[in-house]
C-alpha cells in the first residue's frame, strides 16, 4: 500500500488536531496566525494531492481510492475552502464571531470532504459525510449571541441527522441486496443493464435522498436558506464552497458507477430532483429581499442545473458537472466574500435596498460582485454561461428536451434576481454610506482569484473540461 497517496487526508487530519492544541495554548498574538496556518495546511494538502496525479491506488483494503476523480474534486474543495478561509478573519471579527476553533473545524470538515470524494466503501461514505457535516453544524451556530445563528445551527443539525438516517438505512439495504459494502463490488454485482431487486432499488433511493439533502436539492432543501442566512457570512462562503461539491462528487461516483443507471427508477427520480430544484429554487429566489437568502436559493437552483448533467450521464456530461461546479464555486464564494464585506449590522443580513448607491461608494467591490452574479446567471462570456451551455447541449443531444426547456426558462427567470443587486447598486442612490468598509489583503486575494478564475475558466474552457472529463473516464 502506497501511503503517500493518502497523504492529503493525513495532512488535513493531523493539521486539524494540531490547530486545536495550538489554539488552546497560544497567546492572543499567536492565535492571529491561525488563518495563515490553516491556509498553509490546505495548500500542502493540495500539493500532495497533485504529486501523484495520474496514478490509481486502492488503499486500506479497498476503503479509499486515489484517482483522477479524487484529485479533480479534491482540488475544487481545497480551492473553495482556501478562498473562504483567506478573507475569514476580519469578516468574522466584524460580525463578532471570531473563534480560534473555527480553523481546526474547517480542516476537519475538509478532511471529511476529501474522504467522501475518495471513498470506495460505503462505510467511508458514511463516516466522511459525518466528519464533513458535524463541524458545519458547529460553525453555523458559532455566533452564540445571535438567535438566528443558533437557529441555523439547530436546523442544519436536525436536517443533517435526518439525512444521515436515510443514507445509513439505504446503505444497509444495499448491503442486504448485494452482500458487500465496497462500491466496486456493488458495481460488479449490479452489472450495467441488469435489473435490480426491489430491495436494491429501495436502498439506492434512500442513499440518493440522503445525498440530496447534502446538495440541497428540492424537496430536501429546507435547511439551506436558514443555515446560509444565520451563519456568519464568511462561514456561509465555506458552506457554499465545500459541502455541496463533496456531496455532488460522491453522488456522481455512486450513481454513475455503482448504481450504473441501469434502473430507470433512479434516473426518473434524479430527473425530478433536477427539475424541481431548478424551478423551486429560482422562483423562491425571486421573492427574497435579503441578498444572502437570494444566493442560498440560487444555490438550490444551481444544484438542479448540475443534476441535469447527471441525468444525461456518460463521460462528457458527468465531466461537465465537474466543470459546472468549478464555475459555481468561484462565483458563489466570491459573491459571499463581497457580501461579507458590505454587511454592516450583525443581526440583519444585507438587503437589496442596502446595496443602493454602493456603486458610487465602493465601485470596485460592486463591479466584481456584478461579475460573479453574471456568471451565476449564465450570461456570456464567463464560466457560468459556458458550463450551462454545454450541459444543456448535451441534454438536448441525448433527447432530454423537456428538461432543457425547464432549465432554459429557469435561466431566463434567474437573470431578473441576479441583476437586481447591480441595478440597486448602480442606478439607485443610497440614503447613507457605510464608512467602515475595510478591505483586507486576504479579501483582495479571494476576490482576485475568484474573479480571474471566473473569467479564465469561461474564456478557455477546453483545458478544464478535458481535466474534468478525464477524471470520470473510468466509471464508464
Amino acid at each position, binding site marked *: 500500500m502506497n501511503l503517500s497517496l493518502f497523504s492529503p487526508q493525513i495532512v488535513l487530519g493531523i493539521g486539524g*488536531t494540531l490547530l486545536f492544541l495550538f489554539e488552546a495554548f497560544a497567546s492572543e498574538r499567536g492565535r492571529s496566525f491561525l488563518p495563515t496556518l490553516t491556509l498553509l495546511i490546505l495548500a500542502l494538502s493540495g500539493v500532495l494531492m497533485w504529486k501523484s496525479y495520474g496514478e490509481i491506488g486502492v488503499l486500506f483494503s479497498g476503503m479509499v481510492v486515489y484517482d483522477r476523480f479524487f484529485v479533480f474534486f479534491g482540488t475544487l474543495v481545497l480551492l473553495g475552502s482556501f478562498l473562504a478561509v483567506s478573507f475569514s478573519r476580519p469578516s468574522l471579527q466584524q460580525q463578532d464571531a471570531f473563534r480560534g*476553533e473555527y480553523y481546526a473545524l474547517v480542516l476537519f470538515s475538509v478532511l471529511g470532504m476529501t474522504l467522501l470524494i475518495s471513498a470506495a466503501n460505503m462505510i*467511508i461514505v458514511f463516516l466522511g459525510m*459525518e466528519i464533513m457535516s458535524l463541524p458545519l*453544524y458547529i460553525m453555523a451556530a458559532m455566533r452564540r449571541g445571535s438567535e438566528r445563528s443558533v437557529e441555523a445551527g439547530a436546523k442544519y443539525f436536525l436536517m443533517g441527522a435526518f439525512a444521515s438516517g436515510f443514507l445509513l438505512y439505504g446503505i444497509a439495504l444495499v448491503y442486504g*441486496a448485494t452482500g*458487500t459494502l465496497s462500491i466496486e463490488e456493488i458495481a460488479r454485482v449490479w452489472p450495467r443493464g441488469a435489473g435490480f431487486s*426491489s430491495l436494491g432499488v429501495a436502498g439506492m433511493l434512500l442513499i440518493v435522498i440522503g445525498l440530496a439533502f447534502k446538495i440541497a436539492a428540492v424537496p430536501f432543501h429546507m435547511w439551506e436558506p436558514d443555515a446560509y442566512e444565520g451563519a456568519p457570512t464568511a462561514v456561509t462562503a465555506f458552506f457554499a464552497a465545500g459541502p455541496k461539491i463533496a456531496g455532488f462528487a460522491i453522488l456522481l461516483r455512486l450513481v454513475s458507477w455503482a448504481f450504473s443507471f441501469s434502473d430507470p427508477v433512479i434516473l426518473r427520480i434524479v430527473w425530478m430532483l433536477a427539475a424541481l430544484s431548478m424551478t423551486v429554487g429560482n422562483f423562491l429566489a425571486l421573492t427574497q429581499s435579503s441578498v444572502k437568502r437570494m444566493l442560498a436559493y440560487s444555490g438550490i437552483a444551481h444544484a438542479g442545473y448540475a443534476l441535469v448533467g447527471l441525468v444525461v450521464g456518460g463521460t462528457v456530461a458527468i465531466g461537465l458537472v465537474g466543470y459546472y461546479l468549478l464555475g459555481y464555486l468561484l462565483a458563489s464564494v466570491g459573491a459571499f466574500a463581497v457580501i461579507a464585506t458590505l454587511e454592516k449590522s450583525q443581526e440583519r443580513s444585507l438587503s437589496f435596498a442596502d446595496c443602493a448607491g454602493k456603486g458610487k461608494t465602493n465601485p470596485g467591490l460592486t463591479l466584481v460582485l456584478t461579475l460573479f452574479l453574471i456568471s451565476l446567471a449564465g450570461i456570456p462570456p464567463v464560466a457560468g454561461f459556458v458550463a450551462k451551455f454545454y450541459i444543456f447541449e448535451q441534454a438536448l443531444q441525448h433527447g432530454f428536451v423537456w428538461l432543457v426547456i425547464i432549465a432554459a426558462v429557469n435561466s431566463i427567470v434567474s437573470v431578473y434576481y441576479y441583476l437586481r443587486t447591480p441595478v440597486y447598486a448602480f442606478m439607485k442612490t443610497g440614503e447613507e454610506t457605510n464608512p467602515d468598509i475595510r478591505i483586507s489583503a486576504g479579501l483582495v486575494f479571494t476576490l482576485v482569484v475568484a474573479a480571474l478564475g471566473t473569467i479564465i475558466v469561461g474564456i478557455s474552457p477546453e483545458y478544464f473540461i478535458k481535466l474534468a472529463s478525464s477524471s470520470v473516464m473510468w466509471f464508464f
Partner: protein
Amino acid sequence: MDAIVFWIAAGVAVAAAVNLIIQARPINSVLSLVVVLFALAVIYLQLSAEFIAALQIIIYAGAIMVLFLFVVMLLNLKQGDEEGRRGVLHSFGLLLGGAILLEISIVIRLFVPSAIHPGAQAITSNFGSVGQIGRLLFDDYLLPFELTSILLLITVAGALVLAAGRREERE
C-alpha cells in the same frame, strides 16, 4: 425452542418500544429503552453474535443509558407537554405512522426474503467471536476505526465550542 425465545424477546422489545413512546415521564421512557436494548441483545445472541450482544448490554444498556438517566435528572424534566399529545396533528401522525408500518410489513413479507443476497448469509464457525471482530477491526476496517475516533474528537470539541463561552468571556 429457538423460535419461542425469539418470539418472547421480539415481543418484549416491541412492547417496551411502544411503552417508551407513550410514557409521559422521561424517566419511564429511559427505563423502557433499557428493556428494549436487553431484548435486542437476546436476539443478537440467537444470531450467534455473542460479542455484539455483550457490547449491547455493557455499552448501550449500561453506559449510555446511565448517561441518559443523568441528563434527564439534571435537566429536571417535568411531565411532558400534554397539548402536543392530543390535537389533530397527533392523530394525523398516528394515522401516517400506521400506514407506513403496514406498507413496510407488506413489502417485507412479499419481496425482501428473496431479494437478500446469499453472500450475506454465509456464517463460519467462529463467526462473531471477539478474535474475529478484533481482526476485522484492526485489519480490513482499520481506517473506519481510526476515523471514528476523529469523529468523536470533533463532537467533543464541538460541544466545548458551543457550550463554553469565548476565552475572553471566561477569563
